[in-house]
């Protein structure tokens, strides 16, 4: 038993100094608590922000809007800045969980973000009072040219038995139903029980063909040739293509989701001023560019886009598609508590089947 003691002590002694370098002290100008999507900015920009402003960033990550919401709602953890998607911002506004922004403290936002993105934001934030666009994009199909026949242009390929066990679906309620609803020609904001029932049945029929339901893991799996077809956010397409040139991204002809993720500040944010400074910093062209290069999600920051050096990326149809070329594009809307419940129940039926 003495052995156990010595092992415990020695390993502790050896590991502790190793971790010592990680201990940071709180910033001289307070802190800001940011709750963002997983790997959704370049960590270096956080360090730059801390050095320039003396504000310490407490950083936390979530995987889906649905995971983020209850954490904010219960208030057991205080957050200052969030980065939810369109419909979730609407839900947060409806439930009085967001604070109005003081744009005087965020001069970079109005100066650098393109007007069409403010316009698009009015769908969920009618007066542009609560949110500052951070990233946007579409949802489409990523496929491996060497593993599929011909060209792919329709959601229906996800129901093609040829590709059984080679299909990756999105593991989040709204995204999965979006695919199924759009394929049937319905609106992805449908609350019609009949339409949703059809969509659910289709998803159940599709399940045996699906290799896995994933959110961000689709990236690694497609790079590793684990699957032929995956539903993916356009922002991941550039990264995955860089790692595996056989991959191709397409927006299906039935239409898809055009989404915006925007910075918002919570109603009871303990550090509202710092939060506005943070958002302003993220809107600076050089910072937005740095983040774009790291995460490869399309930036609504026109000034940053100008700074992109490679022509083929600045004018990439994937990162910056001309939306007027596509029909049936929609943005998610918050559908109310009852519809949320209905979607959740139907999704559970799909998953447990």
């Amino acid at each position, binding site marked *: *038993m003495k052995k156990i003691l010595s092992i415990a002590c020695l390993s502790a002694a050896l590991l502790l100094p190793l971790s010592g370098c990680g201990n940071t002290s709180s910033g001289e100008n307070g802190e800001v608590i940011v709750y963002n999507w997983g790997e959704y900015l370049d960590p270096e920009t956080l360090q730059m922000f801390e050095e320039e402003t003396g504000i310490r960033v407490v950083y936390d*990550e979530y995987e889906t809007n649905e995971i983020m919401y209850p954490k904010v709602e219960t208030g057991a953890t205080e957050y200052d800045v969030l980065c939810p998607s369109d419909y979730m911002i609407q839900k947060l506004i409806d439930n009085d969980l967001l604070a109005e922004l003081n744009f005087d403290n965020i001069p970079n936002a109005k100066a650098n973000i393109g007007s069409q993105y403010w316009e698009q934001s009015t769908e969920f934030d009618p007066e542009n009072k609560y949110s500052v666009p951070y990233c946007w994009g579409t949802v489409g199909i990523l496929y491996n040219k060497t593993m599929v026949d011909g060209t792919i242009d329709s959601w229906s390929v996800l129901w093609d038995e040829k590709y059984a066990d080679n299909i990756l679906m999105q593991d989040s309620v709204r995204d999965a139903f979006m695919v199924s609803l759009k394929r049937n020609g319905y609106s992805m904001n449908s609350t019609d029980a009949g339409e949703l029932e059809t969509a659910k049945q289709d998803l159940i029929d599709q399940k045996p063909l699906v290799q896995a339901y*994933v959110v961000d893991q689709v*990236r*690694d799996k497609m790079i590793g040739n684990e699957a032929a077809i995956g539903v993916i956010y356009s922002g991941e397409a550039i990264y995955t293509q860089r*790692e595996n040139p056989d991959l191709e991204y397409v927006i299906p002809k039935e239409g898809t989701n055009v989404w915006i993720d925007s910075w918002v500040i919570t109603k009871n944010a303990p550090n509202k001023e710092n939060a506005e400074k943070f958002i302003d910093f993220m809107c600076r062209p050089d910072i937005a560019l740095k983040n774009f290069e790291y995460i490869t999600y399309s930036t609504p920051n026109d000034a940053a886009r100008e700074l992109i050096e490679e022509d083929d990326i600045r004018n990439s149809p994937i990162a910056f598609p001309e939306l007027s070329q596509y029909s049936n594009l929609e943005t998610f809307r918050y559908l109310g508590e009852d519809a949320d419940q209905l979607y959740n129940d139907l999704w559970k039926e799909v998953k447990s089947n």
Partner: protein
Amino acid sequence: MIKTTAQKIYVGLIFLFLYAPILTLMMLSFNASRTRAKWGGFSLKWYADLFRNREIMQALWNTLLIAFIASFVAVVIGTVACIAINRMGRRSRAVMMGITNIPMLDAEIVTGISLMLLFISFGLKFGLGTILLSHITFCIPYVVLSVMPRIRQVDASVYEAALDLGAPPLKAFFKVVFPDILPGVLSGYLMAFTISLDDFIITHFTKGAGVDTLSTKIYTEVKKGIKPEMYALSTIIFVTVLLLLFLVNKAPKEKRGKIQTVKTG
């Protein structure tokens, strides 16, 4: 002879099964490619990057800090509880042991959500504190279960003799009883430390913003692909512990060979 060979093969296969994932992770720590899906050649760069990665270092610090404090507090509460339980009657002892066993037998997910509900109802802010409280809670049983058998072997009359000779109770305890139960206390401590270190589920439900342990950090990273620095760190931790285990075990090994008895089962 055939039998012992077969036995060796069997044990070997089980250990291959237990340690294959660990070997895989070690390999991945030398993979030059950022994604786990591709082998990009041998590289040591993740080991260098590791020390510059503030988030991972912070998570390591949190993990060790929580494990240290939680197992220490658990050892104090647990050992004192053992002394108390030992003096109780049969019935109360059974009740106490029953309570101790709840978190061991209960599902981690239930422990996790029950603590989450508690903290939310009492308006506690989620953070390092809530994680610590939870970890102490699930560490205590491991301490009690390893100290209890030791304390039952302690001869109570020795302690009483010390008291009779005029030693104050605390001194009598540390001079007479404590050395006897020390091995149990230490193995309880190590067990609690390891369990705390490896816990994910309960931390998942009780953690707050920006306070990540290695487990929760990994869980958020799983989705985008684990950062290779994490493999490097795990390899370092594992190899450190493994080396120590061998060093500590090497010395008494020769003595042991002599008393080794060969039996067949």
